[in-house]
């Protein structure tokens, strides 16, 4: 539609389109004018604040910005745009937390390899997909070795991790570990065995019925009480356990939706061919059910990624937590608009692209007739 609007040579088409979609009635025309007015008000002002009159490295006097007192908008309030220097100066913290600077290349390698590892899972027309899948399976071990350290690499304690690294670590690892559990829970919930069924239902409903923050508190405060002497679980791992439980319960519900959509005849036909329960489930039911439930799984994954920001309440430094830490710094305090805008943009890019992907899948599933 927009392309059509921009196609000036085809004026008549444009005019008809505008008449139908923008000026179909008096009320509609008024609304259009009102919307144009808002756009003219907001977009130039927003872009001006974000980019054109914003500070990056130097302020309007040409001095390099080393703390908030150099920011143009602090020197002349109300005259200048954002002061992105806070992000640029603390870029490493926003990305890696307190990870030692000389070891940051390790995180960068993991960041670079992650999309490669995810590619064959997300798209089925990738070149060498089969070989790629092997890489996807060994990737978590490579990532663990690179991030945490081991033989040949210095050990970096998880208390030094932070920023985008922690957000992605908690989100992706939580989802990946939770995935097999969520399948078992979804199968358990549909099981005919009363005890298996009730255990699954109780687990799923208890996790879904309480706020994530109480699960995080539970992991943070109670886990040390539950474990025997001498076993110490570090803070990040406690957060990960909580996120995994949370993700498993929500994804189980997404998968259950897919299982329900598979007609009973599929399982019955498989069983009558002599396949055992697990054979028919793994080879017949699950592949179909998972395909249907992928969009719902991606949607709950988006929720999990967004909810990783809650770990700042239990003292972990995820992207938002690092932002809050930056604002607590005397040199940079009160630049909250820049920090929150930056964090929001990062989350928006992550979540919006995932939701687009889930829409693409939904469309693809609709056109595929192979089910």
């Amino acid at each position, binding site marked *: *539609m927009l392309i059509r609007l921009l196609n000036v040579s085809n004026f008549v088409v444009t005019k008809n389109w505008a008449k139908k*979609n*923008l000026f*179909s009635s008096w009320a*509609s025309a008024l*609304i*259009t004018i009102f*919307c*144009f007015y*808002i756009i003219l008000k907001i977009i130039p002002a927003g872009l001006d604040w974000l980019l054109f009159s914003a500070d990056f490295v130097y302020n309007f006097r040409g001095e390099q910005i080393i703390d908030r007192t150099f920011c143009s908008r602090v020197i002349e309030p109300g005259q200048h745009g954002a002061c992105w220097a806070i992000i640029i100066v603390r870029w490493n913290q926003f990305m890696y937390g307190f990870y030692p600077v000389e070891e940051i290349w390790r995180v960068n390698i993991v960041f670079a390899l992650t999309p490669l590892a995810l590619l064959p899972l997300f798209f089925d027309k990738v070149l060498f997909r089969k070989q790629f899948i092997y890489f996807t399976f060994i990737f978590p071990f490579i990532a663990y070795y690179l991030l945490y350290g081991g033989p040949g690499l210095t050990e970096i304690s998880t208390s030094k991790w932070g920023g985008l690294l922690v957000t992605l670590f908690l989100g992706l690892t939580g989802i990946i570990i939770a995935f097999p559990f969520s399948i078992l829970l979804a199968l358990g919930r549909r099981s*005919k*065995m*009363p*005890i*298996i069924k009730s*255990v699954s239902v109780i687990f799923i*409903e*208890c996790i*879904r*019925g*309480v*706020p*994530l*923050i*109480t699960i995080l*508190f*539970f992991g943070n*405060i*109670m886990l*040390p*009480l*539950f*474990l*025997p*002497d001498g076993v110490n679980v570090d803070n990040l791992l406690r957060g990960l356990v909580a996120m995994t439980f949370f993700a498993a319960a929500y994804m189980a519900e997404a998968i259950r939706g897919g299982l329900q959509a598979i007609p009973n005849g599929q399982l019955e036909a498989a069983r009558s061919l002599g396949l055992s329960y697990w054979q028919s489930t793994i080879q017949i039911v699950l592949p179909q059910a998972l395909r249907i439930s992928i969009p719902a799984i991606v949607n709950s994954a*988006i929720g999990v990624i*967004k*909810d990783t*920001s*809650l770990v*700042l*309440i239990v003292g972990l430094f995820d992207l*938002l937590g690092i932002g*809050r830490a930056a604002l607590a710094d005397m040199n940079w305090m009160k630049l*909250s*608009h820049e920090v*929150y805008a930056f*964090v*929001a943009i990062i*989350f*928006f890019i992550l*979540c*919006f692209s995932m*939701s687009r992907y889930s829409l693409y899948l939904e469309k693809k599933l609709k056109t595929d007739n192979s089910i």
Partner: protein
Amino acid sequence: MNGLTLRNIFFDEKIRSILIQAFVVGLIGAGIYALVQTTSYNLDKRGIDTGFEFLKNPAGYDISLTLIPYASTDTHLQAYFVGLINTLLIAVTGCFVATIIGFTIGIIRLSSNWLFRNFAYAYVEATRNVPILLHIIFWYTVLLELPRIKEADNFLKFFFLSNRGVYSPAPILQDGMGIVFLTIIFSIIFAIIFNIWAKKKQENTGVQLPVFLINSGVIIFLPIIVFVALGMPLLWDHPVLKGFNFKGGMVIRPEFVAMLLGLGIYTGSYIAEVVRSGIISVSKGQREAASALGLKKNIVMKLIIVPQALRVIIPPLTNQYLNLTKNSSLGIAIGYADLVHGFGGISLNVTGQAIEIMAMVMATYLTISLTISLFMNLYNKSVQFKGNS
């Protein structure tokens, strides 16, 4: 098939399922036993007594927002109730705001105006792809940038806007206000009865009475007439700036407003999508058939589209209400005095009774969640297709 050989027993489906379940029960039992053992050992070592005795001890901390009487000398149990009521307060008001935003945006999303429609789309995508916690923290910082108490903005003559909250006059009820309240209740009961009577009349005779007009007239004007007749038994306590703070009046704290805005805007965009998909789920033929019968546009909406859309809307809408209630626990990040912040946070730190307090908090949320979904299920049943379809 015959003979109780070991192999037959093992492959018998019934026996097998019992074996598997017994195994699971044993596993869970052993897990719980081990947990209880290590936990009680750990608690002994740290010198923490178990039990709910601590609830009777004085809490010893203040709560900034109290709808029921509370002082720091009151018990932890009282602090629990204060927190619970604050949680319910933000949940109910939040659901209200989110519903209004959601229905408005959801309907705009279906506007025939391209620009208007995409405005709503931009709003939905921009808000729901950002974590709720960021929404809440952002609004809180914005509210804290308001003028300080001394330079509070005065608006609409009696209201003051500052970074410590919105100050407004508080009503003081005088004698006779009770009668006014009774009149309100009476007029509502009258409206319900009149509604039923008018419906019956329409079914019997086909005569349509202006029910909405009469009822709203009764509900609005009757109490006002009684109120004026009794000599307006209501005084206002105006906030006055004294020293560093306002005296008198009512105040709405920025924590509450930030929670309301954050939860309302975030959940509102989800509700907008729910509403939108509900309305488009009603097939075009329904609208066309209704128009072909000669029904007016608003009647088509009221009698044909909305009742069918509601069937689709209600289950996911319930989900959103539940999510909002659970997300209200994020008040802890900005110091909104809800259940998790006061009882689950400060009481826990003061007493150290982690297990009991966490159990109480989680059980409370679970109860709220189950209650909401129960009521919504009942309502859902009442709007589903009647008969065997």
